[in-house]
């Protein structure tokens, strides 16, 4: 969301409710940076980010009458963004298989280094590590993916995740546990392939 403190959100919302197109346009401009950040963090592969952002905004306008002001508006919109992303992830029934042969030279080296020595991944390899992380996350169930992304990449707390997703804190913990176990299994499989 833009840092523009002068943006009159309440007034803008009132005008949007009165079907003012200019106000709707201003609201989209104001919220776009926040929405696109969420979309980029949770974007399923092969889905254009602009299409997903458009879906989120259209849902926001359709449900605007349901917004009662109990939570900040940005919080309400980010929940719509998250649920739209998770719906998209769920819609992608087939998850791409994680194959050693599909990894680039850099990714193979980074994976080797991360699993074989104690040193941190070099900053030069950060991009390859990021790609690798996303490939690994693609192997998880959509809900588990979302929890691990928020926990380990965005470094959000369990309480924050619970508040953003609407899931109970115990559910978030269970999903995190299940996701880590699956990652453990993936690493074990990689170890086997590496050994053979």
């Amino acid at each position, binding site marked *: 969301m833009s840092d523009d403190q002068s943006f009159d959100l309440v007034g803008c919302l009132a005008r949007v409710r009165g079907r003012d197109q200019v106000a709707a346009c201003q609201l989209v401009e104001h919220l776009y940076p926040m929405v696109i950040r969420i979309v980029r963090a949770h974007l399923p592969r092969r889905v254009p980010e602009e299409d997903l952002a458009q879906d989120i905004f259209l849902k926001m306008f359709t449900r605007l009458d349901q917004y009662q002001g109990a939570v900040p508006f940005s919080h309400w919109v980010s929940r719509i963004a998250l649920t739209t992303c998770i719906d998209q992830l769920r819609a992608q029934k087939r998850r791409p298989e994680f194959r050693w042969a599909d990894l680039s030279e850099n990714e193979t080296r980074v994976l080797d280094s991360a699993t074989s020595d104690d040193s941190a991944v070099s900053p030069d390899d950060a991009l390859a590590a990021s790609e*690798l992380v996303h490939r690994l996350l693609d192997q998880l169930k959509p809900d588990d993916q979302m929890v691990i992304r928020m926990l380990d990449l965005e470094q959000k707390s369990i309480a924050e995740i619970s508040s953003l997703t609407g899931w109970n804190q115990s559910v978030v913990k269970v999903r995190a546990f299940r996701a880590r176990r699956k990652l453990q299994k993936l690493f*074990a499989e990689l170890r086997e392939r590496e050994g053979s």
Partner: protein
Amino acid sequence: MKNTPQAWERLAAAARGVPDEREAHAPFGFSTRVAALAMAERPIGSLIERFALRAMILACGLAIAAVAANYSSIRSLFVQEQTQAPDDPVAEMADLAS
């Protein structure tokens, strides 16, 4: 090979360090397009209300027109009933009793 949490944490830490340098502002025309689409859409509730009201007005109009068009037939039916009333066996029995 190190245990999984350490390997995963190292990879995740490296991934966190990748700056996102992509443009965070809406692309040209995006907000105008989305706002136009949103304002063109009418909420389902109001659509139902609008069509339900129109359907009710149309149904009332048709009912009135049907009655008006068949007024003579309806009226003759009532007249017929009144003239046939004396043939009614129950009415006749009532007349005999009196």
